[in-house]
């Protein structure tokens, strides 16, 4: 199953770190994933994100307001893959 990963947050240092962690996690799992970035307030509201950066996978907000460690992102992604 393909993963679509969206990073919410416009250009802040933590958004870039989150993207790096997400890419590292995808590489560790060895799965296919497409990436997207968005800095749009309406998108934040749509997913219910209160503080950037936000991690959205397959249209669901998995983490907001913090940068999870690579290992935590791996767990989050594994759960998504197992659930579908």
């Amino acid at each position, binding site marked *: 199953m393909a993963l679509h990963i969206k990073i919410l947050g416009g250009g*802040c*240092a*933590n958004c870039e*770190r989150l993207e790096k962690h997400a890419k590292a996690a995808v590489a560790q799992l060895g799965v296919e994933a497409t990436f997207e970035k968005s800095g749009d*307030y309406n998108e*934040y*509201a*749509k*997913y*219910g*994100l*209160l*503080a*950037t950066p936000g991690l959205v996978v397959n249209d669901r*907000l998995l983490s*907001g*307001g*913090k*940068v999870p*460690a690579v290992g935590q992102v791996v767990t989050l992604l594994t759960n998504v893959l197992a659930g579908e």
Partner: protein
Amino acid sequence: MVHPMNLFDTALRLAQSGLGNLAAYLAAHVLLCLLPAFFIAGALSALVPKEAVTRYLGRTAPKFISYPAAALGGFSLAVCSCTVLPLFAGIYRKGAGLGPAITFLFVGPAINILALSYTGVAIGMDIALARLVLSLLFGIGIGLLMALIFRRDDVAHDAGGADAFAGRATIERRTWLFLLILLAVLIAGTLQVELLTGGFASVTLSLPAAERFQAVLNQLVPFDATRGEEGVTVQGALLIGLLALIGLAAWRGLNNITEGFNRWTWVTLGLVALTLSLAAVRMTAGADGLTIALTGKALAVALGLVALGLLARQFEAYAIQEWLWETWRFVRQIFPLLIVGVFAVGVIRPLIRPEWIESLAGSNTLPGNAVGVLFGVFMYFPTLVEVPVARLFLDLGMHRGPLLAYLMADPELSLQSILITASIIGRRKAWTYVGWVALFSTLAGLLFGAWVDLY
């Protein structure tokens, strides 16, 4: 005609004034207050889950909970506007509504830990306290007023979509303890009470060079105490050197901290501890050498640092890395601009005649306070730079009332932030908000000024 030599002299004098201001601020004010304050801001950002505050800001939260929560949230979550604006938009669109959102927007920039401690040390605890209390009260007041004025729109707003405020989280006990000790180090370092500042043991190092060094410093950074200027002491010069070393070490030790600790991380932390401890002892250069007095302050700071080190081991490594990273991120974001700002203030200082300031805002009048607010609206200063600017006004004879009015209005209102706010809540609401802030800031200045005149 101006002789070119005179022009050169003037430029040199201005540059010297700028450097002097910079040196004095780094040594006297920054170290013992801003250094711990940055670590506290980092801890609030990295260790306190945002859901612990936002859970009280949902649509169903009663008013007597949502407004105070918004005010406290402003204090704990809002060191930089990058957190404030998404959260503001979220509270407005999906949460408790316009009123608490406005309260949050108002309180955040004025009374975060960095702004408060810097104001307290550079200008005075009375102004810092007034800024804290009046921002909380008026933030809630303006929020309630806005909610009342626009109550029709507020009822109508969007109820669909994900519930952003469903997240539940609490602050762990060890995090509370960690924050409290950090706060204790900050307070012990800055509080001027006899128990802390009095020396109880001292040694004199036979260093004749110390006195000569002090003489050189006085020549490099000449100062006029009657104009509120400060020179640089031997201790100050030492601390500035250490601060530069911390910056260098942190560049290698903290830039990649999230990948793990390296040798430079330990060097950085060691230097920070050394700097804080050295800043807390009292050094005087005299004829017989350098006298170092051990103060209660130094003891308190050292104890606090040891306690922090022990407590840090209770956290997961990633949490501590996040804490150091957030701290370093704030430093990188705020400190360079602050240095430029302090230098610029020093350059400008000799160019402003005290008579101008005195005639505009030398006493606590309505026009005086209005001038303070207007200046705050039209000038945009980066985070924290409003503080040295305010200090400049104070030295040049501004009354403390208009000074507070300026300090309340400046971080709240800049043309830039008004435009962004307008894009979220609409132009009519945004300008109404601006009007209330201007009015309330003027009122805050008048009230505080009257209180100052009374005592």
